């Protein structure tokens, strides 16, 4: 089975006043219809990897790759129009913070319907029905009411769910979730993950799950990529994470305080310069 997404030697760099910032430096992986986790500390290039695949990198950035294909389509040579037609339709991305990712002056419903009607020839009333159904699918109670609310009128958890609904309504084959729960309370976090998990299972999408929480990723995903300074330092199956070889991965795992384990002081990560090479 050919993979859904193939990424070979992806590089993203930003020219800035102080020189070239290399955010992603040669990332290679491929994805089938599975759940792939990308972890790493802040600034390690997780989001930029996701955005580069979506084609959402700011225009002044430079993107190169040996291969970047989605379902056989070469994304590097695809026209902007082609890529636009892919986005939201076959490839979707959930952004990190619902507070800022929803258009504040449009109702939730219109934003969801907009995705659908951009990609499908469909009547207004049918679109609305499907949007409400989608809202229900992401477990929003009273979906018809929420449909007419503005982003500021709903909680963060609901906003994130609306965001998921908005991105999934066109039934994409690949979903990139960029820290979809980090802005949420722990209890809400799990709800949202459960929804996501169910939808992936039902639809057979490929999922890239970006997070900085190693423990969460290991319990949610099938496979995990660990990034450090724009590179992949380790790729490992989720259940094997405990046995990770790379000291960085090990360090990330062990530095989190846990209920019941009495480690004083906590082990800290001792970054080695050679990791970044």
């Amino acid at each position, binding site marked *: 089975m050919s993979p859904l997404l193939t990424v070979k030697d992806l590089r993203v760099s930003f020219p*800035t*006043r102080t020189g070239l910032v290399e955010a992603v430096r040669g990332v290679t992986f491929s994805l089938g219809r599975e759940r792939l986790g990308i972890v790493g500390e802040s600034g390690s290039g997780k989001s930029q990897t996701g955005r580069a695949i979506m084609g959402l990198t700011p225009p*002044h950035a430079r993107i190169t790759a040996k291969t970047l294909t989605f379902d056989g389509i070469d994304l590097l040579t695809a026209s902007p129009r082609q890529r636009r037609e892919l986005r939201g339709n076959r490839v979707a991305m959930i952004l990190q913070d619902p507070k800022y990712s929803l258009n504040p002056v449009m109702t939730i419903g219109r934003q969801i319907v907009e995705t659908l009607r951009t990609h499908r020839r469909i009547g207004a009333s049918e679109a609305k029905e499907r949007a409400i159904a989608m809202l229900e699918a992401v477990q929003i109670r009273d979906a018809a009411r929420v449909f007419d609310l503005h982003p500021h009128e709903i909680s963060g958890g609901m906003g994130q769910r609306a965001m998921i609904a908005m991105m999934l309504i066109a039934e994409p084959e690949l979903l990139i979730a960029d820290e979809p729960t980090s802005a949420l309370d722990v209890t809400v976090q799990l709800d949202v993950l459960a929804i996501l998990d169910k939808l992936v299972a039902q639809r057979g999408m490929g999922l890239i799950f970006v997070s900085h929480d190693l423990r969460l990723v290991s319990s949610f995903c099938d496979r995990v990529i660990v990034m450090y300074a724009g590179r992949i330092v380790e790729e490992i199956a989720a259940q094997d994470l405990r046995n990770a070889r790379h000291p960085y991965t090990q360090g990330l795992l062990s530095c989190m305080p846990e209920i019941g384990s009495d480690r004083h002081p906590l082990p800290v990560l001792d970054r080695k310069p050679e990791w970044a090479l």
Partner: protein
Amino acid sequence: MTAVPSAPMSRRDWLLSDRPQSRMQARLGRAYMTWRRFSANRLALLGLGILVLLILMAIFAGVLSPHSPVTGNLAGARLLPPGSPGYLLGTDEQGRDILSRLLHGSRLTLFVIILVAVIAAPIGLVVGAVAGYAGGWVDAVLMRITDIFLAFPKLVLALALVAALGPGIENAVLAIAVTSWPPYARIARAETMTVRNADYIAAVRLMGASPLRIVLLHVMPMCLSSLIVRITLDMAGVILTAAGLGFLGLGAQPPLPEWGAMIASGRRFILDQWWVATMPGIAILLVSLAFNLLGDGLRDALDPREAGQ
């Protein structure tokens, strides 16, 4: 401990060091960064250049002027066109050299600008910062006053004040200052309100600092850069208002070579002796353009938020 690098640093590296060794270096480094951001904007540099030129003109007006700015040759050299021998930019209806008048007029322009900035900005800053920080009835009262002045037609108020105080450049300045502080107060207040609840202000309050100290040392500096930008952008307006007052005969008194007044008296000749009104018009345009360019540049340099990525 960090090792002090042994290799001699270039001056630029020293300035840009992210480990400054002294207060001085830190401050200079910061200024240098601002300057670099600013000087990346070529138009802003142009604006600065024009203003530097203006200042030089004002300083050396006496040396540079080929003629007296106030005494002319009514009988012999009236309304000569530009390029007439001895009169590069021509002469006006009193037979005075326009170039000399423009040169000396730069002093008045600078005078107006500086005075307005010195009067209006602090009033606005203090009123706005106090209102924003204190909140409650203090805010309500101060903002009501500000609103009244805002609702007052600006030029009418200036006109009225000048009429009340008598025409003259000092009174024109005063009138402009009195009418131009309310927007500054608004800006300072808005800025203060966002800053007021910031954690770093809460932190200072938790140190036990008095409200006065907080407003003066911690809040006001935060308003300053947006205020400076706004003042710079407003300066063009100030020059234009001063010119407008001069145009209506209420600004500088003759024979002072105030540019607006020069346009006003020159406009009678605009049909035949176009240069009399046009030369000061261009001067005003250039200087206020310079201020606008400078303000734009300063905004990008001082206010990285608006500068984009």
